[in-house]
Every structure is written in C-alpha cells, then in structure tokens.
C-alpha cells in the first residue's frame, strides 16, 4: 500500500484526517508504528504527523504534572522534576530510541513494551484525548482497555506528583543495559503514619497491556510494609495476570519470577 505523510496544522485537523481515512495512523516517534509498517505487520495508508502541534511540552501546576503526548523519553530525562520517572525512561532503548519514542505512543505499545504506561498506571494518570468533535479526559486504566478507538488522538497525560520515595519501579530484562521487559512493576506506596495509604501497583508484560494488581493493592492497603504484609502480597502476586510467551520469556517464567521481583520491590532491595 502506498504510504503518504500528512502534516496537519492543528490537533483538530489531525483528527479530521484520521476520521477521513481508516488506513491513517497518528504518528508519534515512529519506534513502534513505523517499525510495524516496515515489517509488514501493519497496513498503513497515511501517517499523520504530530510535529508542530504543541504536544511536546511538560508542565507543572497545582501539584500535578502534565506531559504532552509528543514528549519523548529524552525530554522526561531532561526534566529534574520528573526524576522519579527517570529510571523508567532510561530503560527504554538506547539514546536514539529515547530521543524519538513518545509518551503518547508508549500508551499503545503491546507487551513486552510500554514501560511508561506501567508507571503512569501506578501514578493514577489521566489521559487527555480529542477527536474531530470533542475533547475529554479519561482515566488511563479504562483507556488502555479501549485504546484503539478510531479517530481519537491522545494529546497528553497528567497525574499528581507523588510524595517523595512513594514511587517504585523495577524492570527485568534479559539484556543489559536495555531490553524488552521480561516483566515490569511500578508501585505507588505512600505511607501515612507508617502504613500504606492509597496503594497502586501495576504490571507490564503480565498481560497484553499494562494492568493493575488490585488484589495486591488490597493486601497492602492500611498495612505497614513489613515482612508479614509483603509475604501476603507475594502470595497473591499473580492474581489476574495473563502473561504471554515471546522470545524474551515464557509465560511460565514470567509467572514464576513475578513474586520474587514484587517481594524485592516491596522490600526496597
């Protein structure tokens, strides 16, 4: 299929272009979409560019961060106020990939990719979306279940900045310093009076998209992060997961090592 490139002058114009052509795709950095096109896995008639639409900014207001959909992993790494996300962004490819891969594009990554989406799910992020007629903000969790809605454009994500030391992340890979996830775990574990209040735990590569671990969260909520609570959380670590087998790891291996890495994350070791 011949491929055309469309350079819209506004998000609305981009949404109109997408609505008019079912074979058109909104292009972020290209590290997933163009890769799929080049391998013949995805038939694309037109690439609608996000360049020049003002979607690359990172802003802070009222204790919240707002990251534009076209902000790259390199932009996150250059922002000291997002230092808690630096270990996540640093794990996504080499410098060239980090300079191209966007936050918005990462929300559409299939397992074993999509580490930023895992972190954003733990952070309780909202997603700003627009189509040709409307714009709205939706919670990331339901968004991920229905993310390929035709004609809809992600314009950014926003989330409350976490209390110091409340956000934790681990990514397990076969290859160093970067590689696709065997699994990834992100957790928000704010402590109040020594006990967890508002636990959010998210997994990557344990389902087709990033998922939350509500049973683990329930076990941790209201408890100190002590050996007893960690042991109980580890017992239910695999609840609700449906990992796949791929060249990086088998489903069996992912399920087998998830409790080990969850325990380490919770212990802070």
């Amino acid at each position, binding site marked *: 299929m011949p491929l055309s490139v469309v*350079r819209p002058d506004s998000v609305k114009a981009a949404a109109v272009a997408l609505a008019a052509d079912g074979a058109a795709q909104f292009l972020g950095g290209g590290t997933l979409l163009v890769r799929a096109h080049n391998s013949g896995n995805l038939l694309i008639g037109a690439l609608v560019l996000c360049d020049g639409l003002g979607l690359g900014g990172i802003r802070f207001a009222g204790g919240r961060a707002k990251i534009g959909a076209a902000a790259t992993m390199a932009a996150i790494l250059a922002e000291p106020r997002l230092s808690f996300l630096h270990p996540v962004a640093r794990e996504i490819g080499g410098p*060239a990939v980090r300079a191209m891969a966007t936050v918005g594009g990462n929300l559409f990554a299939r397992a074993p990719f999509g580490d930023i989406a895992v972190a954003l799910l733990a952070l309780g992020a909202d997603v700003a979306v627009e189509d040709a007629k409307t714009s709205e903000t939706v919670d990331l969790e339901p968004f991920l279940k229905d993310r390929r809605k035709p004609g809809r454009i992600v314009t950014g994500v926003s989330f409350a900045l976490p209390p110091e030391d409340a956000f934790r992340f681990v990514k397990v890979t076969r290859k160093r310093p970067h590689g696709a996830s065997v699994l990834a775990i992100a957790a928000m574990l704010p402590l109040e009076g020594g006990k967890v209040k508002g636990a959010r735990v998210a997994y990557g590569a344990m389902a087709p998209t990033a998922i939350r671990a509500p049973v683990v969260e329930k076990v941790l909520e209201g408890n100190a992060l002590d050996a007893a609570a960690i042991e109980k959380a580890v017992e239910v670590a695999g609840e609700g997961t449906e990992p796949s087998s791929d060249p990086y790891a088998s489903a069996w291996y992912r399920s087998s090592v998830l409790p080990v890495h969850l325990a380490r994350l919770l212990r802070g070791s």
Partner: protein
Amino acid sequence: MARVPLQFTVNGREQAEFIEPGAMLVDVIRDKLGLTATKNGCSQGTCGACTVLVDGELRLSCLTPAQRVEGRLVETLEGLAASGEMHPLQRAFSEGFAVQCGFCTSGMILAAKWLLDRNPSPTRADVIDAISGNICRCTGYQSIVEAILSAAAEMRGEKAVS
C-alpha cells in the same frame, strides 16, 4: 502516487529532491544523495546502523519518514570528515581496530559524537549507554568503547595525535 518535494540540509549542504511519499530517511540519504555510510540493517530501529543526527539529536533514519526532516539539519558520517581530515572518533576507530566488517561503524561513531558533544569526559558507563542502541556483531564492543574513550581524551587535549 506523485512524488513530493523535500528540502533539507545534509552535512551543511542544502538539498532539494523529489521523493516517494512515505520514503524513509535512510533510503533518501543512500539512494537519492548517494551517501552510503548510513546503513539499513534491520528497518526495525533495533540495530542502530541507520543512526544519523537531526538538528544535533540522534535519529534512527529507518524509522523516520523523510518528510519529517523538511527544513532540518541532517548530519551523516560523511559530514565528519567533510574537510578531508578524519574526525578524532574516526581516527580512534581506525587505529584501535574498532572497525571489522564496518556495517555498524557509521551509527556507532554518530552515537559517540552525540555523546562527546554533550559530555567531553564520559565514563565507561556513559559510553556503554551511548552505544547501547547500536549492535556490533564483530568486535565484542570492547575496542569500540576504548576507541571512544581514546577519542574523548584526544579531543580534551590529553592525548597526542598520532
């Protein structure tokens, strides 16, 4: 589909071409401009052989539609020795046996240049991170890391030019 115009600057020289819509930058650089140092290894953004600099930032040209660089500055390996004299990185790669088959070399050197442009005194870990998106199947990487550290020392004036 009708060809589309593209104007951009490559290695300091303005270029105007008519290209196939949707053509990737690597193909325009190689096939239209004849600058064949840039290689197309995997077309997946995995091997790094197609690495170029766009406005000073690293880009995988196999994943970059050429129309995306309209009006921008592209630098390929050929631009490093435009004056006829090898860049210290090129010299260090050559003298340090960091080139075997040579397929990865262009991408490796541009990734290294990107690093040294920002950090003249990189640690070994910095170098390993900078080339972590570039695959070499010949050298085992050690000679490449040593060459980059050696070029950095030379560029800081700490090492005599041989």
